């Protein structure tokens, strides 16, 4: 379970999170949607302990992440996979070395790493690309390599930061199917941050709309199509005139 309680974060005068609360049950996938720049990635970085909140609490399983020591946060991170918005693959390493670095840190025996790496890359459709460097891959391939690195150690928690942004519809669909397959296979507790509502509907059990620093609406993919909430309608239908405050 991932539990966020009353999270607050401001950058100068800009309040990004303002009492944000969310609970993701074990094995559940929640998509957090919202307009660009609303603080979705900031939220995810709080869950991972990459940012410290000004107020509120972050719980991952039984561990409190905010304010914890590096050793405690690292213990949580070893059970967590993070798919970065632009993949964040290490430029100086090949795709296989990127995945292998994650496995090595998880104490996987050296002899098993090549096989586990191959299996992980095979799962994301990158078999045969092991020896390529990130600069030699397309955007979609880099994203998939990022997913392979995140899931190779079979984490209990998965955080996806805009996994489909900037991708063509076919690759988007492929990534969505991958997220769903990983959920079923790993039974991981996941948060997907995205502004792609179609993608959110495909992969998530529940969808939360982040607006003005808190959850403005929450429901299932079916409910989001039926709700009368103005902000959700504005987001679903792409109608700016419905967006509260605009």
């Amino acid at each position, binding site marked *: 379970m991932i539990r966020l309680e009353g999270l607050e974060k401001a950058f100068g005068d800009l309040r990004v999170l303002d009492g944000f609360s969310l609970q993701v049950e074990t094995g559940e996938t929640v998509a957090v949607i919202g307009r660009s720049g609303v603080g979705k990635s900031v939220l995810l970085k709080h869950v991972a302990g*990459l940012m410290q909140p000004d107020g509120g609490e972050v719980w991952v399983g039984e561990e409190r992440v905010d304010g914890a020591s590096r050793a405690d946060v690292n*213990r949580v*991170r070893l059970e967590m996979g*993070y798919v*970065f918005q632009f993949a964040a*693959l*290490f*430029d100086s390493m090949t795709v296989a070395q990127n995945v292998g670095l*994650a496995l090595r*840190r998880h104490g996987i025996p050296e002899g098993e790493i090549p096989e586990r790496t191959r299996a992980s890359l095979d799962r994301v459709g990158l078999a045969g690309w092991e020896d390529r460097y990130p600069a030699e891959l397309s955007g979609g391939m880099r994203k998939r390599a990022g997913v392979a690195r995140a899931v190779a150690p079979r984490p209990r928690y998965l955080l996806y930061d805009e996994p489909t942004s900037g991708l063509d519809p076919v690759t988007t669909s492929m990534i969505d199917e991958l997220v769903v397959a990983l959920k079923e296979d790993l039974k991981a507790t996941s948060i997907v941050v995205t502004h792609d509502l179609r993608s959110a509907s495909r992969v998530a059990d529940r969808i939360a709309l982040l607006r003005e620093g808190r959850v403005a609406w929450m429901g299932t993919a079916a409910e989001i199509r039926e709700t009368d909430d103005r902000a959700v309608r504005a987001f679903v239908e792409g109608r700016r005139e419905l967006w509260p405050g605009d």
Partner: protein
Amino acid sequence: MRLLEPIRWIGRGAAAVAAGAGRTAAFAGSVARAATEVRTWLPELGRQARRIGVDSLPIALFIALFTGIVLALQSSYAFTGAVPLYFVGTLVGKTIILELGPVLTGLVLAGRVGANIAAEIGTMRVTEQVDALEMLAYDPLAYLAVPRVTAGLLTFPIVVAFAIGIGVVAGWATSIGLLDLSSQEFVRGLRMFYRPFDLQYALIKSASFGVVVTGVGCLFGYTTSGGAEGVGRATTRAVVVACMTILVLDAFWAMVLL
């Protein structure tokens, strides 16, 4: 009110310097703590030693070669008619060992190595690769800073030792080839005031320059923000600060050790 403006300006400057010194001290402390994670940085050390030390040899030797040639020619020009010519050997040896070998090599490597490190780590910072290291439960400083600073500490003295060797040999070859000086006379001058401590002094200085160049590169790279422009800014600052620190350290070692 205008009279107070210079005082305010000095105050703001002093506060900025103090804040910078505080950040630098905190960063140095974090790197020292990260050095305890030997299993993280040791496998990277060889690769960094090759990039920082071995790959720097050609430029360091090129500069030392011409420094030796010019020193021999200029000292001969200055000594003509006033000082015995075998002092060319003394001047070439003393100047290259004590000053030009370490300092010129340090300044050149501040550009080559310091800029490279700041740009590489800065790019990693703005493309979230540093965050990715954290997410894999690595201490980014143990993985990025410790092997580079250690490699600088270990390889700079070696590079400088080679540069000193080439510089002196170039001075000798110039003296016997272009000046009215025999090999024996050059060596006589070279040995006349040589003390083994000279070389120790040069190597101590070089090691400190190695730490400064790599450490400053890591500091500015690690604290980069603001995309490509931020990386450019960090790179420029790393080179400028490393060069200035080398010159200050040079004076410091001269006061402390000589």
